[in-house]
């Protein structure tokens, strides 16, 4: 049984955290993810959860406490944004290397400087190579669904998972979100059974590994990522039985017969879909590929789908001194020459339908440049 609740993206994240009732949550508030912790501490004060909420002095400590608690045998969740994620950097790698099964909601916000609280993907894109699974959510509904997937995925593969949503655009807008009953969530995720616990077993974790073993241990993470890719699909289908949604590594929106395709992440996809509907009425063959799973990257699957279409990759982040991250990934996966890079929306700059229409139309008329910065005063 499901019901519909009016929730923001942050609200959806804290709702699932309440239903999961993790053993330990350690977090430090940062805009725009603050509401997740605000809601959650309210649930704790109201006696709706019996979590050990650790109020730490920084994000570095927050994630360190989470890693420690997880290896002591606790189910752990946390949330952060932007500079908070940047401050966690060192321990993000530790969490992945130690195979910590934790879930973190990342509400995407740009990195300083200049200081800015609004959305772009530069925070999570920077953390893409540290060994975390990354799932991007278009709306609050997907935040809820992706959290469900993440908890099971993390505990199955023993890897940490990041669920990303767009700061303010998703995190602060109220939507109707399909929510499962508390008991259904509990039944779905089951009991957390860690392989080891620092409190019960005579073990040491976080040991030194010199050149004779370090490479093999990194290789384990490579193998784990391959496994995670397969598991994601399986768990996604399981969740689909409870909550109907677009399953798979990516959502294909009017993609099959499309000649020009936009590839994008998160909330922008909603705007693109609206433009596609309009252009389709005029007979223009346009489509969207909304990527959900960014790490591990579904390389072969993307190549199969995007094949010989004209591809426009929209990045809400910039790699200073090189091409944008999503563009590089898609270009590498498809080995396409008919591929174009769009950079937009940095620091929360809005992207409008007219701009997406302009991109599509230029592409249809073969006028699009290889790299365009949309919405900036040059």
């Amino acid at each position, binding site marked *: 049984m499901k019901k519909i609740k009016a929730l923001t993206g942050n609200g959806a994240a804290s709702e699932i955290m309440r239903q999961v009732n993790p053993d330990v949550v350690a977090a430090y508030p940062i805009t725009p993810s603050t509401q997740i912790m605000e809601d959650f501490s309210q649930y704790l004060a109201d006696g709706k959860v019996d979590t050990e909420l650790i109020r730490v002095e920084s994000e570095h400590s927050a994630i360190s406490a989470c890693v420690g608690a997880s290896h002591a045998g606790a189910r752990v969740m946390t949330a952060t944004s932007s500079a908070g994620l940047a401050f966690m950097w060192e321990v993000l790698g530790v969490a992945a*290397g*130690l*195979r*910590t099964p934790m879930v973190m909601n990342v509400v995407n916000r740009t990195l300083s400087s200049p200081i800015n609280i609004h959305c772009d993907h530069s925070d999570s894109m920077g953390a893409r190579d540290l060994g975390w699974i990354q799932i991007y959510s278009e709306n609050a509904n997907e935040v809820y669904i992706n959290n469900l997937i993440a908890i099971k995925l993390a505990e199955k593969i*023993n890897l940490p998972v990041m669920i990303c949503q767009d700061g303010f655009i998703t995190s602060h807008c109220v939507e109707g979100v399909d929510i499962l009953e508390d008991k259904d969530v509990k039944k779905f995720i089951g009991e957390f059974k860690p*392989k*080891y616990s620092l409190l019960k*077993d*005579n*073990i*040491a*974790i*976080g*040991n030194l*590994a010199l050149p*004779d*073993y370090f490479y*093999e*241990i990194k*290789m*384990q993470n490579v*193998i*784990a990522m391959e496994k995670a890719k397969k598991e994601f699909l399986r768990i996604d289908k399981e969740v689909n039985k409870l909550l109907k949604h677009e399953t798979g590594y990516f959502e294909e929106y009017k993609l099959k017969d499309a000649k020009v395709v936009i590839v994008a992440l998160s909330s922008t996809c909603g705007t693109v879909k609206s433009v596609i509907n309009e252009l389709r009425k005029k007979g223009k063959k346009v489509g969207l590929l909304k990527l959900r799973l960014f790490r591990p990257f579904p390389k072969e699957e993307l190549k199969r789908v995007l094949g010989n279409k004209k591809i426009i990759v929209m990045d809400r982040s910039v790699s200073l001194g090189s091409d944008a991250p999503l563009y590089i990934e898609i270009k590498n996966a498809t080995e396409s020459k008919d591929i174009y890079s769009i950079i937009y929306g940095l620091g929360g700059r809005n992207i409008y339908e007219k701009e997406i229409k302009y991109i599509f139309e230029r592409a249809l008329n073969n006028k699009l440049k290889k790299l365009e910065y949309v919405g900036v005063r040059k």
Partner: protein
Amino acid sequence: MKLKNAREIEEGTVLKEGTSKKNKTGNWKTFEPVVDFDKCIHCMKCVMYCPDICIFQKNGKRGKNDLSMCKGCGICAQVCPANAIKMVKRK
């Protein structure tokens, strides 16, 4: 010692108890001690000085070396009053 591959190692750099017994560190050494028992006066100085407990005594007699943990530091050769221990390069 055969090194384990990526699929054989415990995930997450977990080490179970008692690794110091299993992990023989004797292959680090360049020189190893060789005892001339004709010269040995069984003073037990080397037994007490050895930092890696590689030399044992039984009933007041110095026993053979157990070199599985010996790093080749040469302290035994240095303290031996009878010059009975020589450090020899390993082959």
